[in-house]
């Protein structure tokens, strides 16, 4: 993992509070999703984001209104961070009609035009050209939006990633490639799958600048995000952020976790946790008291519990939904 965490600098109380809330919301939401899975209310695949919260929360802080994002199946955190409703996300996890995709997408496939969230893709690496295509559209339409295209360390070995790097550089597309390097692709560690130690350096072959970022430090992520956004928005083409992070839970819900030790996970949790980091800054900086944070914890728990209730009560989609939304109707 990268260097020492940002200790304080000029971060305002409001900003720290914001990060704390946002990251905590994702963590509590994911814990609840894990619980609902255990109760059989969520089925199929369910990839939790616990441990990686600082990545998406830091980058969202660098985004402007109208910027776009697209990611893989490990997408719940991205949706919450870009402002999609916990209720709609949780109800999609339980496959209910109140979910973002009317219960037809599930954990891996949600979208929101309003929040500029373009999925939720289940094929490892497929979201990478799609993200570049969103950026292509923005450039074509002449607005100054940028697209955050998230993918994993495992996905970074897909050929289409490099096809996309080539075209994104060739055409100066305003796309930020965010490699969420959580060190594992299912059970395969980066060392066992990836010839380069620093994945972002692969961009050099295409003339794409990039950097490694400590993904357990939300302030460092935000700062790197701002550099990347400024680069893209000024028309200089793509930028790569390789964000070194860690997933605490299994790959999906049924993961025997034989590829790493308990101690390894425990060590990251104890020494690097992104939420604890901000909590420390808030308390040592005397921005707030333990009691203030407890109040926030309570508020977030309430939001998450409400979403779980909503997700249980929302009706299952009608059987007819099996054959709707397969073809769009042409406008008259």
């Amino acid at each position, binding site marked *: 993992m990268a260097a020492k965490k940002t200790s304080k600098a000029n971060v305002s109380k409001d900003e720290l509070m914001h990060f704390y809330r946002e990251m905590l919301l994702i963590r509590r939401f994911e814990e609840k999703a894990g619980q609902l899975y255990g109760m059989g209310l969520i089925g199929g695949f369910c990839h939790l984001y616990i441990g990686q919260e600082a990545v998406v929360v830091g980058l969202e802080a660098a985004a402007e209104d109208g910027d*776009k994002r*697209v990611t893989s199946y490990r997408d719940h955190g991205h949706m919450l961070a870009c402002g999609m409703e916990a209720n709609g996300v949780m109800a999609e996890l339980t496959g209910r009609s109140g*979910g*973002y*995709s*009317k*219960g*037809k*997408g599930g954990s891996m*496939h*949600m*979208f*929101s*035009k309003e929040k500029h969230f*373009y*999925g*939720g*893709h*289940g*094929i490892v690496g*497929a979201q*990478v*050209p*799609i*993200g*570049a*295509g*969103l*950026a*292509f*559209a*923005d450039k*074509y*339409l002449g607005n100054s939006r940028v697209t955050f295209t998230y993918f994993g360390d495992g996905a970074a070995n897909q*050929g*289409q990633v490099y*096809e*996309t790097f*080539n*075209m994104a550089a*060739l055409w100066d597309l305003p796309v930020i490639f965010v490699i969420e390097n959580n060190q594992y692709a299912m059970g395969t560690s980066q060392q066992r799958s990836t010839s380069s130690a620093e994945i972002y350096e692969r961009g050099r072959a295409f003339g794409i600048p990039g950097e490694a970022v400590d993904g357990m430090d939300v302030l460092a992520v935000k700062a790197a995000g701002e550099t990347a956004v400024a680069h893209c928005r000024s028309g200089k083409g793509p930028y790569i952020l390789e964000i070194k992070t860690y997933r605490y839970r299994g790959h999906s819900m049924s993961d025997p976790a034989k590829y790493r030790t308990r101690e390894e996970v425990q060590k990251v949790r104890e020494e690097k946790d992104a939420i604890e980091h901000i909590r420390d800054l808030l308390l040592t900086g005397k921005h707030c008291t333990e009691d203030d944070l407890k109040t926030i914890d309570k508020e977030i728990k309430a939001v998450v519990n409400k979403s779980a209730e909503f997700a249980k009560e929302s009706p299952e989609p009608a059987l007819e939904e099996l054959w*709707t*939304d*397969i*073809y*769009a*109707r*042409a*406008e008259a």
Partner: protein
Amino acid sequence: MAIEILMPALSPTMEEGTLAKWLVAEGDKVSSGDILAEIETDKATMEFEAVDEGIIGKLLIAEGTAAIAVNSAIAILLEDGESLSDAAPTATPSSVSHASLATKVSLPVTAHAPKQGNIAEQDLPEGTTFKTQTVREAIRDAMSEEMRRDETVYLMGEEVAEYQGAYKISQGMLDEFGSKRVIDTPITEHGFAGIAVGASFGGLKPIVEFMTFNFAMQAMDQIINSAAKTLYMSGGQMGAPMVFRGPNGAAARVGAQHSQDYAAWYAHIPGLKVIQPYSAADAKGLLKSAIRDPNPVIFLENEILYGQSFEVPDLADYTVPLGKARIWREGNDITLS
């Protein structure tokens, strides 16, 4: 021994061509490799080289002559010391000399097939006139008309812009629309298909040309998993209004890897619309409808048909609805459509 120089077949589907320009004159001495003429095929204008050395005895075909059949004599080459009168008026076929020995491809489809389907059935406005167009021109016109009509429509693919199309479909389009809307891609089917899908999510209406559909195998995942399925997976929130088009199926003598027909494959995918037109009129009307359709459409063309001419309604905006078969010939007992 005088040699007849024959009209060469310069593309797999060429049956005839235009002798655009002679680069030698009668009496010129030529050696093997010298450029004799520029010949315009159905796909491009190409230089035609001498195989044998000798002296140009006679140019049999005037510059600018069109529709010269492949394998017909275009010039007579004399050996040193030989005179034109020595050369027998009918040179023996064993002494043929041209770049590639082409067997004339016979196209059963053109021999019996109707040139104009039951077009009247679509209620064309009274007094509609027709113009004769090749399938190639009809496809180009369909794209150009839609690009004039809608700024968000654009064309991308290998060799579509500067080269004017590998099969000359997009001829002239770069000039008219510029490089922002007629885009040459690297040879990277999976990547550019994915970029086009993303662009369609982002508000554009891409037309993706595959040089042939055989190469779309590389892009299959983006076509099926991303383009076809997103509408369903998003509960109807967003889909991919786009067209994937290009030649499909058998071409002439290009081997197994370049001859696959994908119609049945794509037709099995929920979320895709699949079109395979025959006539130029249908190619034009259906492609225009496909570009306007809010779904991903697979538009399968056929290389052998590109140069075939048909009657096309001469209308400002001629469209043919998707999902309705054209009846070309009614059967007595059964009609296939």
